[in-house]
């Protein structure tokens, strides 16, 4: 596993050979895919809901400045504070300052991909603050010092035996002979250990699935309830999220809430949806005394007005990942980035740079399933194609590909040459085939190492077309 997006081809090859990954990836279809399909079916007119979600997110993305200004005023009016961060380092510093001002030594964390994106945990540790992940999946991978392999199921790649080994190694104060064979035993052990952390943490950090501009509220969805204990028990609550999460009001959120859990896990609603607006009120006996929101840009605004703008509509449901044949073969770690699968392929080249993440945009069969299931109708393959074009035009594409395309273009612009070439090629391929399949070509080519190519068995398309007319 490598945190380097440029190492994707090798990491993908290694992942294909990893036998532990197969059972996990098999669950994409049986759990996520089937769950979403059934939920969509039960809803009835899901297409109108997608249209409505798309319209809300499009409106938000094209009114982002106004909505953010409104959001800030609403947060202030409720006694909270908004912090703005252009990039990861500004975000980390803003969070550290809040924590230091609060005198925080330990901070519990709800699930947040943005804090992964800005590499918050190592930074806090280096500054003497202990971050404790409390989402069960995040907790497991924090103990294993691994990055998430999926945006909503961070420990997706692990078996329950691997989790048991992790807990036996980490929870040294407990009876080493205890039984951790049942999943529920693992869940209860984590619950007990993390409850003690919630009770003593000085601050809590959560992400946000949505922000309501009119209310100055952050909305999170969880099934575990860890996000709520993270907000409600410590003195200080910090929400860290991307600038694109803001919509007009809770009525917009209500529509998006119908799309998110169905697309993610196939649930009609997540067990907990929590709307968090400011610190506790004067009559309240619990809730945080201080409320901060850190709004992170980190390349997002640079996508506005480009061919990749639509990717900002994303509500991070993971449906595109769950239905992607590439992710389904190599898993999440191979990408070497916070966002993997189709959403990673559309987003990463934009925010990390094409030179850094071009492999992600190339890791697609263009089967189009991602765009079919995306609840906010993001044309993911189109955006990937855009990044491929940028890679090509900025001279970053590998020589073998640019030369091959150049050769093809030369022939394609000369019809006689093209007709002759395809005729010869078809005949040659037939000669080289055995029982209808070409199994190798006399050129240095890894393509045939893992696949065969069906030999052309008739005339070329152009010959057939001519004959038919």
């Amino acid at each position, binding site marked *: 596993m490598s945190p380097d997006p440029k190492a994707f081809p090798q990491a993908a090859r290694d992942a294909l050979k990893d036998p532990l990954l197969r059972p996990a990836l098999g669950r994409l279809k049986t759990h996520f895919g089937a769950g979403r399909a059934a939920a969509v079916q039960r*809803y009835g007119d899901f297409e109108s809901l997608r249209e409505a979600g798309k319209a809300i997110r499009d409106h938000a993305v094209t009114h982002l400045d106004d909505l953010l200004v409104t959001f800030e005023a609403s947060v202030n009016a409720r006694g909270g504070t908004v912090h703005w961060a252009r990039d990861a380092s500004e975000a980390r510093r803003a969070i550290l300052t809040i924590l230091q001002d609060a005198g925080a030594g330990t901070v519990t964390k709800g699930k947040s991909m943005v804090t992964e994106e800005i590499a918050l945990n190592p930074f806090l540790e280096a500054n003497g603050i202990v971050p404790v992940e409390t989402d069960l999946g995040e907790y497991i991978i924090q103990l294993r010092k691994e990055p998430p392999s999926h945006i909503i199921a961070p420990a997706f790649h692990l078996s329950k035996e691997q989790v048991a080994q992790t807990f036996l190694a980490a929870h040294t104060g407990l009876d080493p002979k205890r039984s951790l064979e049942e999943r529920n035993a693992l*869940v209860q052990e984590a619950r007990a250990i993390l409850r003690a952390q919630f009770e003593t943490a000085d601050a809590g950090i959560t992400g946000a699935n949505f922000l309501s501009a009119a209310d100055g509220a952050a909305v999170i969805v969880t099934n575990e309830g860890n996000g709520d204990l993270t907000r409600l028990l410590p003195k200080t609550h910090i929400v860290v999220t991307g600038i694109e999460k803001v919509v007009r009001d809770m009525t917009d959120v209500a529509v998006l809430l119908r799309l998110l859990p169905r697309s993610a896990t196939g649930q009609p609603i997540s067990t*907990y949806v929590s709307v968090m607006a400011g610190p506790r009120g004067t009559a309240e006996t619990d809730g945080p005394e201080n409320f901060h929101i850190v709004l992170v840009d980190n390349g997002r605004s640079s996508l506005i*007005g480009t061919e990749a703008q639509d990717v900002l509509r994303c509500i991070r449901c993971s449906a595109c990942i769950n239905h992607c044949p590439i992710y389904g073969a190599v898993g999440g770690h191979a990408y070497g980035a916070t966002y993997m699968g189709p959403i990673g392929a559309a987003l990463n080249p934009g925010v990390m740079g094409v030179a850094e993440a071009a492999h992600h945009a190339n890791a697609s069969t263009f089967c189009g399933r991602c765009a079919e299931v995306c609840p906010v109708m993001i044309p993911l393959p189109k955006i990937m194609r855009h990044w491929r074009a940028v890679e090509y035009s900025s001279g970053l594409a590998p020589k073998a590909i640019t030369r091959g395309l150049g050769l093809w273009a030369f022939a394609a612009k000369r019809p006689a040459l093209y007709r002759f070439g395809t005729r010869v090629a078809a005949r040659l391929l037939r000669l080289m085939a055995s029982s209808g399949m070409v199994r190798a070509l006399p050129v240095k080519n890894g393509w045939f190492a893992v696949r065969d190519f069906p030999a052309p068995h008739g005339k070329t398309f152009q010959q057939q077309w001519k004959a038919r007319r």
Partner: protein
Amino acid sequence: MSARDAILESIRVRRLARAPMPGIYRAPRSDGDLAEVFAKKMSAQHADVRMLDSMAEVPAAIADILRGRNMAATVHVPPGSELETLALPNVEVRRGPPGPFDAAVTRAPFAIAETGTLVYPSGKGAPASWHFRPVLEIAILRAGDVVAELEDVLAKLGPLPSTLNLVSGPSRTGDIEQTMELGAHGPKALAVLVVRH
């Protein structure tokens, strides 16, 4: 330039066309009595839903739920809530926050039929953390407080409280092998007493 102004500027200089105002979305509605629809949807989310005729039946139901789960006859009731006047013979009532193995009784002022969801605005006598601390939450809901959808709650609520919790069943996780287990951080069990009158 401050980070704030730089981000806003970056958005403004790049923006091309603005998308139109979204229309109002109307979700499909289930037919039938809202309380019945709520009960069906909530039950499907692993909650123990019981329909009661009147508040007089609540004490017996609470005792029965505790017995059924082999729990001590003790419940936590939030101080300052309207439940403080609820007489619970043979059940010890505590006022402090519930611990991870305790039972809490709460009053849900709204519920949503569409998704089988309890709605809890935080406030005086309604501490938000109580929906997450106990191992068993027993929610008392009046049938007349069930509305069709979240939009209806928002319209009734006015300005948001500091925390608004939507609860649809007991806590769960699918983080180990994508297989659901109950009781991850919040309650392992949720009972809802729907009082008709």
